[in-house]
């Protein structure tokens, strides 16, 4: 059994009086795919955003590859890291947004090379060569010079995935990557993600695509009301859920 890539321990998070995460414990092994399911408002996206410190946790801690995220331990207490250190940690964690968030004034290739050059200070030529290879890998070899608005939603999301991969992350987080897409474009994005999963990339995917979860996930996590209700291999969580809330959700989604 491989080591834990992500370790989430006792995480709480509130927005004002609204408690969004209510004590989350989660462990993700390296090289595995974890799919997080749950009704909207259950805290899935917030959990994902806590993993790369886009949201600050109120209580608990998150570590990736043995490194505490957003904080350092000194004298038995946790101190928040400076923004520069947080940015450095984030560069090792890929994040794919629901609405892509490509930079519209940069071409597909420029979108991909920006962070490796400015955040990781890697040589330009090497980064450009890798970016071209990544574009080919997501099936967009001919579109390097296209601006995001000249691409379809599915193509934009594939560029966004390539952009996340360009940083050579230890972990890639997907926040509902296909929810903003037209139904006929969902498949092309899921295909790319399937390929990634096969290559052994550690992934946490928040999605409503049950089929994808069944096929690709090593672990399925079901969340409701800021808590993890149950988790396990897809066969048990999806086909014979133990908890009635999971059953209710699945019957609604699969209906």
């Amino acid at each position: 059994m491989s080591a834990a890539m992500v370790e989430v321990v006792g995480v709480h998070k509130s927005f004002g009086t609204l408690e969004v995460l209510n004590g989350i414990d989660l462990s993700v092994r390296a090289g595995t795919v974890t799919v997080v399911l749950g009704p909207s408002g259950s805290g899935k996206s917030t959990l994902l955003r806590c993993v790369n410190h886009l949201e600050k946790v109120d209580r608990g801690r998150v570590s990736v590859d043995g490194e505490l995220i957003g904080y350092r331990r000194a004298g038995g207490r946790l101190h928040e890291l400076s923004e520069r250190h947080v940015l450095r940690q984030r560069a090792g964690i890929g994040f794919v947004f629901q609405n892509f968030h490509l930079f519209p004034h940069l071409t597909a290739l420029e979108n991909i090379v920006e962070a490796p050059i400015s955040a990781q200070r890697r040589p330009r030529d090497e980064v450009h060569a890798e970016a071209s290879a990544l574009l080919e890998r997501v099936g967009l070899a001919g579109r390097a010079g296209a601006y995001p608005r000249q691409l379809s939603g599915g193509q934009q999301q594939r560029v966004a995935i390539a952009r996340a991969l360009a940083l050579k992350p230890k972990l890639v987080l997907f926040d509902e990557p296909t929810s903003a897409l037209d139904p006929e474009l969902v498949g092309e994005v899921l295909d790319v993600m399937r390929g990634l999963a096969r290559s052994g990339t550690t992934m946490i995917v928040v999605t409503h695509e049950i089929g994808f979860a069944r096929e690709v996930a090593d672990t399925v996590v079901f969340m409701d009301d800021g808590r993890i209700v149950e988790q396990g291999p897809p066969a048990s969580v999806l086909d014979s859920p133990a908890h009635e809330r999971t059953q209710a959700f699945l019957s609604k989604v699969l209906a």
Partner: protein
Amino acid sequence: MLVLVAQFVHGLATNAGWDWGTFGGYFFERSVMRALLVTLQLTVAGAVLGFLGGVVLAAMRLSRNPVLLAVSWTYIWVFRSVPLIVQLLFWANLGYLYDRLQVGVPFGPGFFSVETSGLVSSMGAALLGLALHEAAYAAEIVRAGIISVDQGQLEAAAALGIPRGRQFRRILLPQAMRAILPSAANELVNLLKSTSVVYVLAIGELFYQVQVVYGRNGRVVPLLMVATVWYVILTALLSVLQFYVERHFARGALRTLPPTPLQRLRAALGRSRLALGRDRAALGRGGRPGAALDRDAIR
């Protein structure tokens, strides 16, 4: 409408009051040209200093640091509140308030000092006033552009670990430029005309200079027209510049860029040649000549 225009043009040509001879005599006259140069210098220097200050102030106002935020807010409040003309007079009379400026330990001994009246010439006062005034307005224009950029852009940049300064320069500002440019061009035209206010400091810019001349020869209207036409020409040049700069920053925001006027002209010429060809063809078929042209005109 056409009749009114015709009447106006006729009036321009025949009314002796316009005195086009004097206008022509002074339009390229040396003192006017020198004054025009001063106006241009004030505009360019005021715009460059003003917008540099504006970017810094806008960044401060959007920062999370409460001190920077308060300083920026106060600056904008003060310099938008004081009329430019009043501010200019203040700077020109700085020597009256503080006759010496001294660098040293606060409330303690000084290291060296300079006389204020020597430090701020009237040209310096004008430039200082314009730049400080301009910075306050530019700050708000830049800030408007920045907050118009989708929050997700910064989030994506943060998630990619792009350093903060780089986020601002490479991701935020270029996108903000789309919203900034029309207002900035407005502000620049405004500044160009505001330079005429510095005539109160007896600086030989365009407006001051024509006043001097008509004070001497009494031909008020033709000389005002000299200044007016120059302001119109400069504004026209700025508008052309604005078009091309906006087009540059539209990259990626539009699927296809709008054609430049030159491209449009070429296309129109090509089309009319095409229409003529079609016309001839229509004649050959016994159709009504001009039908093709009519259709084009309607379009």
